[in-house]
């Protein structure tokens, strides 16, 4: 209350200002244990997220490791220009956007749908069984998952053999070297691995809906479909919006570790994203400045997207991150 008043009024009386300050101070003292618990988190962000931002200036320099960040010569936007003119610029941008979009369109609703389906189950034992099965893949290491995928999708692997056996295909498909299959494999396996885990948060939101709403709806003659549309979905909408914002904030960050484990030069065309490109050029070929420029470009897009979506959500859905 006080804080709002102070903000909205330009001519704030000193007395009030002091009051605000005193109130804040008292609040800190009162909740000191909470603030103490906050310290490690703040330190973590300073050390691992804010301090390294200083290193981003190598995007504007010709970074030579031995000269250090400070002494490497400035080159302005040379690396950005090089990236925008690169043959691969359009392609990796397109791949990043397309894969992210696939993940958002197919992956994001999948968790919600699973949560809604589980919610409708009456048999508690079966419900828990399905839930456990669905989130188990989350605990398998990515490297193992990719190894399994490669093995299953080989020309003489289990998937090709099954498809041949039931006569869907006449010739084995070498999935891993065909560009047109990459995105499907990547996004599909991603959904398989994460859908159960992601649905947990929605299940939690579902349990927060007041049961009397359902009872009232039932009395009014609403069927289960109607109840889901009019009660369940609006009930978890704030959670959906927040998660959507967070997801869009990471829109341009495609898990490049998984890309690297699954792609090869025959599938670069659809598989190479900004993250994997940065990894190849930066770590394997040691072009640090160039890749820092590419990474910075990526982060700027992400940041812009996050702000835009948040604004939109604030206006349209009245729930937002800040």
């Amino acid at each position, binding site marked *: 209350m006080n804080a709002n008043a102070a903000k909205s009024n330009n001519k704030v009386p000193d007395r009030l200002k002091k009051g605000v300050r005193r109130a804040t101070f008292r609040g800190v003292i009162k909740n000191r244990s909470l603030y103490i618990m906050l310290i490690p988190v703040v330190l973590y962000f300073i050390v691992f997220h804010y301090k390294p931002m200083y290193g981003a200036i190598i995007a504007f320099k010709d970074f030579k*490791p*031995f000269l250090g960040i400070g002494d490497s010569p400035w080159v302005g936007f040379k690396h950005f220009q*090089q990236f925008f003119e690169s*043959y*691969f610029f359009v392609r990796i941008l397109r791949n990043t956007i397309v894969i992210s979009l696939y993940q958002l369109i197919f992956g994001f609703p999948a968790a919600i749908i699973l949560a809604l389906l589980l919610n409708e189950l009456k048999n508690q034992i079966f419900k828990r069984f399905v839930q456990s099965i669905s989130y188990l893949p989350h605990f398998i290491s990515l490297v193992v998952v990719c190894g399994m995928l490669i093995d299953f999708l080989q*020309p003489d692997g289990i998937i090709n053999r099954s498809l041949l056996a039931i006569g869907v295909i006449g010739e084995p498909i070498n999935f891993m070297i065909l560009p047109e299959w990459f995105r499907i494999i990547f996004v599909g396996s991603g959904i398989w691995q994460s859908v159960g885990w992601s649905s947990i948060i929605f299940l939690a939101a579902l349990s927060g809906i007041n049961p009397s709403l359902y009872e009232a709806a039932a009395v009014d003659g609403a069927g289960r479909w109607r109840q889901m549309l009019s009660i369940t979905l609006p009930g978890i909408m704030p959670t959906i919006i927040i998660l959507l914002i967070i997801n869009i904030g990471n829109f341009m960050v495609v898990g490049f570790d998984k890309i690297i484990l699954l792609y*090869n030069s025959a599938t*670069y065309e659809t598989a190479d994203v900004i993250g994997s490109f940065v990894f190849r050029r930066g770590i394997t*070929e*040691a072009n640090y400045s160039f890749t820092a420029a590419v990474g910075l470009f990526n982060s700027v897009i992400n940041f812009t997207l996050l702000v835009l979506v948040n604004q939109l959500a604030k206006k349209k859905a009245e729930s937002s991150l800040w």
Partner: protein
Amino acid sequence: MTSNKLKETASKMALALALVMVVTACSGKSNSPAASPSASPSPTSSNEGNEGKPEAGALPIVADKLTLDTWVVSDGNFRGQNYNEKNSFVKMEGLTNININWIQGSGADGVEAFNLLMAGGQIPDLVAYSNMVTEGPKYGQQGAFVELTPYIEQHAPNFKKILDNNPELRKLLTTADGEIYQFPQLNLHEYNLVQMYPQIRQDWLEKLKLEEPKTIDDWYTVLKAIKEGDPNGNGIADEIPYVAVNLQHIIRTFGPAFNTDWEFYVDNGKVKFAPYEAEYKELLQWLNKLYSEGLLDQNYLVDTDFKFLTEKVTTDRAGAWAGWSGSYMRSFTDLMSDHPTFKLVGTEPPVGPKGEQRFGFHAWPLGTVGVAISAKSKHIEEAVKWLDFQYSEEGIMLNNFGEEGVSYEMVDGYPKFTDAVFNNPEGLNSTESLLSYTIGGGMWSTVADERYLEQYDMEEAIEAKQKVGKYINFDKAFPPITLTTQQNDKVASLLADIRTYRDEYANGFVMGNRSFDEYDRFVQQLKQMKIEEIIAVYQEAYDNYLGK
């Protein structure tokens, strides 16, 4: 009261310190018995030819024990924890009084580990790396590694002698600006130059009543027969006629027959980039024919790990490949010792449609492995002396064969490996056991001794190496020379793009993902990606190298 407490702590600390000293003294002593018996004859062997300068080449290098930090990528076949477990280094420490603190990087080839080390800027005294031949000068020119020329003159008599006797080697090692930045591994004997050569299942050839393939057409016939003739006799056509772990190995084996190569090569003094030349298309078309008929491993782009290839060979499915003598031919033969007929033969490099025959998969006298010294090291002089010791007669013996009486015996002047290596009591295979006695002459800054491989290689390998060795042509291969910083800045990024593009299209053409109708566009795109400028830079570097 406080002063009493202080005294107490101080005395406790002194006690602890004393204990530590006793312990270190003990561990120091435990090394010496191994080292002392042979410590006496050493100065005579390594002091030859520098009577004028008593201090150069003299042992021990330092009076008080000195520790040098050395970064190295662990060899996957080494079964120990620390390189100081190798007898050769224990002995070296006794002789030189220099202790090496090994900092072991990880990773298959260590590229990422090395790049991160260099980017971190905290570089230990010595850095050993598998691709020092290009990385040494690159980082050296940036000031990370010491310029060695003056040090070699003064403190490295053994190494200097080798360079003086091999002017070609000095030419290769010296950068365009006249500097030397690393102590390289050296292959001074022709036998050590042969790397991966074509190997084929001899027993399958016999079964199918076929001769060893000579020409490209023979290769096609043989691979086709392996595919269709069911040589492993299990009734299923599961044979994979030719296996590989990447396109580079395939092209370096078959490319020269089409008068082309993997990347840069030289044609009558003119530097060429293989994918930009017409011959490359013929090669890819031929490979595409193999691939589409199932004669080439359908999974070579996915199964890039050597263990996949091993599996294909040991499950009796693979027919031919390009491989090393040890890790391929010998180890496969060992693994298949239960098989009734398994036998491999190395073939000559294939003859192309125009009669071209060249062996392209060879090393240069200047190996790619090397050790460089950090410019920030406080002990540059001692490090140079220690590295020079690696090139002394004694150092070469230690690095190649290990310690005399333990891993080898001198029989009529020939260093013969003992049973500790070839019939290891702990059941290690010969590669693994050898590495617990020495680092291996082919993997360290020293001279590779051909007598090491002569014993290590199987008879079939020795024969094969002699067969293919004749077809090495240094005038056609692009030498391992380095670019200046300016040249490198100009081409590095462009070439990185081109390589990605080349990988994608070359593999696409071979696998049939791309039609050869697109080939002209591929070449056109290379031009747009400024390949001609890059070739010009490489030509400049090559001319400069020839002119030295």
